[in-house]
């Protein structure tokens, strides 16, 4: 029987963690629980539900800064920011539907703890790059803080980077401070049709290596593009390569025209304006519309962009493989049959071909698969040992999300 601890204050969190540490009771830390399927399976009878630690406590638009509790929904934050024409520039996707959850529930804590970022990652950075400060309770039951509320800060180690993407294994965050930025007034997307993966990658590189400040670059093979709700993408029965520009009106129009000219050598194109453009990039970010088969396993590969097509080609050997590219080729979303090891061997061997590194995360698979395939890319022995020493220094008793990132020792 699972017991749910639901702290209302940071002091409650300290009490809960101290109790858990004293009683060797591992905690499964949850906000809205929309990304529960991401990472290893946690074996515990105690859920620490931080969703009550919610609400924006500070928002100063002209200082480009916002603080909120971990349980604050992203929708609340985005709505507030939009009133001042601002946004979270790392464009956090909503992966709820990909994990079989309703959209719109995810929280700030969850987004930062998973270091989740969307198509704009290539231009504006990821969640890690916008995470300025936090308070947290470590596995020792001690309240600590790091960073601050200003962007420029090199005072002490940058534990924000460490906590972003730590999946709750180092501490339970109780307040988070993030950088916010003006949203572009206008958005345009240039589309190219019918390119194969290799040529598409050349086109994306061409665009990204121009001075036109491309803010997103994706390639959807024909079968995938057909699932888009945007007519210019979904109804063309061909592959679609997409490049986005954002900013002030005159600049966006100028860059869009310049890109169309630059990319003209790749054949005919089209352009998407406001609403269609936003819909397409939402689909690319959130994945579920483009890879809709809920029975399939989902992989997420981060690779050197130029290696994207080569790696995807190898992964094509996995039964039921279906994929598309974001981040100019540097991010591959791959769906495949979930049976056995869900293609883990092929996918992870494919990365070896890139020589320059990269990682493949098994984002979604049935529990039994995730129990014998490590969801995160296995690390070199040295880095794995370092990770374990580091984790242990924050959480010596192993009570915070044990097994979620690295397999439990023993």
């Amino acid at each position, binding site marked *: 029987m699972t*017991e*749910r601890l*639901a*702290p209302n204050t940071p002091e*409650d969190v*300290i*009490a*809960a963690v*101290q*109790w*858990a540490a004293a009683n060797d009771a591992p905690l499964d830390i949850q906000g809205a629980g929309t990304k529960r399927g991401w990472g290893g399976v946690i074996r515990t009878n105690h859920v620490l539900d931080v969703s*009550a630690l919610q609400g924006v406590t500070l928002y*100063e638009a*002209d*200082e480009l*800064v916002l603080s909120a509790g971990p349980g604050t929904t992203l929708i609340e934050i985005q709505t507030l920011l939009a009133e001042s024409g*601002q946004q979270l520039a790392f464009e956090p996707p909503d992966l709820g539907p990909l994990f079989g959850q309703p959209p719109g529930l995810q929280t700030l804590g969850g987004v930062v703890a998973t270091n989740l970022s969307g198509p704009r*990652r290539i231009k504006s950075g*990821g969640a*890690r*790059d916008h995470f300025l400060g936090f308070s947290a309770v470590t596995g*020792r*039951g*001690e*309240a600590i*803080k790091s960073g601050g*509320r*200003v*962007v*420029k*800060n090199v*005072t002490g*180690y*940058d534990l924000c*980077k*460490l906590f*972003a993407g730590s999946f709750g294994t180092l501490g339970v965050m109780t307040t988070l401070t993030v950088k916010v930025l003006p949203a572009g007034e206008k958005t345009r997307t240039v589309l190219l049709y019918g390119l194969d993966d290799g040529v598409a990658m050349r086109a994306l590189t061409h665009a990204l*290596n121009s*001075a036109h*400040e491309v803010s997103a670059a994706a390639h959807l093979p024909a079968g995938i593009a057909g699932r888009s709700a945007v007519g210019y993408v979904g109804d063309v029965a061909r592959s679609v390569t997409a490049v986005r520009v954002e*900013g*002030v009106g005159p*600049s966006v129009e*100028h860059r869009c025209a310049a890109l169309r000219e630059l990319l003209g050598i790749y054949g005919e194109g089209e352009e998407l304006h406001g609403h269609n453009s936003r819909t397409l990039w939402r689909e690319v970010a959130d994945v579920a519309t483009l890879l809709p088969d809920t029975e399939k396993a989902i992989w997420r590969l*981060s690779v050197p*962009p*130029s290696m994207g097509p080569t790696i995807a080609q190898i992964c094509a050997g996995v039964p039921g493989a279906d994929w598309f590219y974001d981040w100019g080729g540097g991010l591959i979303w791959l769906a495949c049959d979930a049976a056995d090891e869900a293609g883990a061997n092929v996918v992870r061997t494919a990365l070896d071909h890139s020589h*320059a590194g*990269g*990682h493949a995360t098994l984002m979604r698979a049935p529990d039994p698969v995730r129990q014998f395939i490590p969801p*995160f890319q296995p690390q070199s022995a*040295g*880095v*794995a040992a*370092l990770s374990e*020493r*580091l984790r242990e*220094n*924050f959480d*010596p008793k192993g009570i915070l999300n044990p097994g979620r990132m690295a397999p439990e020792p023993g």
Partner: protein
Amino acid sequence: MLKMPDPDKDVLARREEIVRALRQIVPGEGVIDEESGRRAYECDGLTAYQQMPMVVVLPETVEQVSAILKYCDAGGIRVVPRGAGTSLSGGALPLEDGVLLGLGKFNRILEVDEDNRCAVVQPGVTNLAITHAVTDRDMYYAPDPSSQIACSIGGNVAENSGGVHCLKYGLTTNNILGVQMVLMDGEVVRFGGRHLDSAGYDFLGLITGSEGLLGVITEVTVRLLKKPETARAVLIGFPSTEQAGDTVGAIIGAGIVPGGMEMMDKPAIHASEQFANAGYPLDVEAILIVELDGPEVEVDYLIGRVEELARAEGATEVRVSQNDEERERFWSGRKNAFPAVGRISPDYYCMDGTIPRRRLSEVLAAMRDMEKKYGLRVANVFHAGDGNLHPLILYDANVPGELERAENFGADILKLCVKVGGVLTGEHGVGVEKRDLMGEMFTEDDLKQQQRVKCAFDPQQLLNPGKVFPTLHRCAELGRVHIHGGQTRFPELPRF
């Protein structure tokens, strides 16, 4: 006075033996033993503190770095890594019983990978050399600390260096993709690569700005950006610093994030103008330099808006650069502000606090009061867009007591920065300079947890000890698990 860790007498007694062992690892002139040679390394950019290192070693290969660290780890010998030695916070200050490990010979650009928009470089390559190496491709490396002609990329990673363009383009941490690093026990590890984000903990982010306490960087993969089509700068003069500050807020509030946005106060304007003849107005209390970059049509449009906003806040002078030469001239005063101040005062002490920008007027006013209290003058240059202040405290080290007064003045400024919601250091690092002020910002528990991070990398605390943390705790002591409370079931906690 600054207290460094007590020298290890046993290590000092073994000095000859250590030098011989290092010569086995790095043959020839790579080990500097004689006093005159070591003298060149006795301080970094923070010249107020000096210490002769026990021995200097300048390896040329990763294998040598690994062997040196392994040997020192086994022998309990302290090591201080050093890049170009431009740190303004004493990050590379040697230790009497320490090996100074210089990375100056790691000076090659290994690869420019245009398709993946990155370059792989050795840590001793200067910041500016990276940009020079890719200029013919119209690319550049964005972070541009003022010392960019001299400072090395390895040092930039260690300090998470910024520069005037980081408001729009980010700091070092936002502009690198990977590193190779040697841990204190000699293990060579890689974090990141040419891809984005990490599969596990973000070690790349953690080691950026770790001030040489966690490992020795032997290779860096940096992101390259395409040069913007155009850049133009606006020079704006104001009758008060408040109006300049308000204009900065208005520009950002209007959704404009300039490539650079710098403020100077009257003493800094006058010093710079004498030195650089940048054409700054002398009858104003503050100037702003706002640089916009991007497509010409965007730059023109935004410059128009900036001009409007500045005039609405009461700017008395607005000049837009008409060509690159004029833009460079606007910047020349700002970029030469430190040496310019060096001309009007025998010595100056450069501070580096960051504040929430809207507290600027209050902080400047408090500084004027402090000038009276300490009997010293201050000139202010300011990365206005991101709230990073560089007050330059003018003093004369030859006047007894002035250095101490300047340091106390500086400490007061930094304490004020923290009090208004800011931080001790925006881009220069803690080093030894701000080490003893860390308690102003962090609790004992905060600092202990940071030191536990170091324990995971360097359990004997041999790498650059005495920097960043005011009190050194032994890792064994830090590692002890002592859980407070936890005995009761905390009935007040809601459960379901």
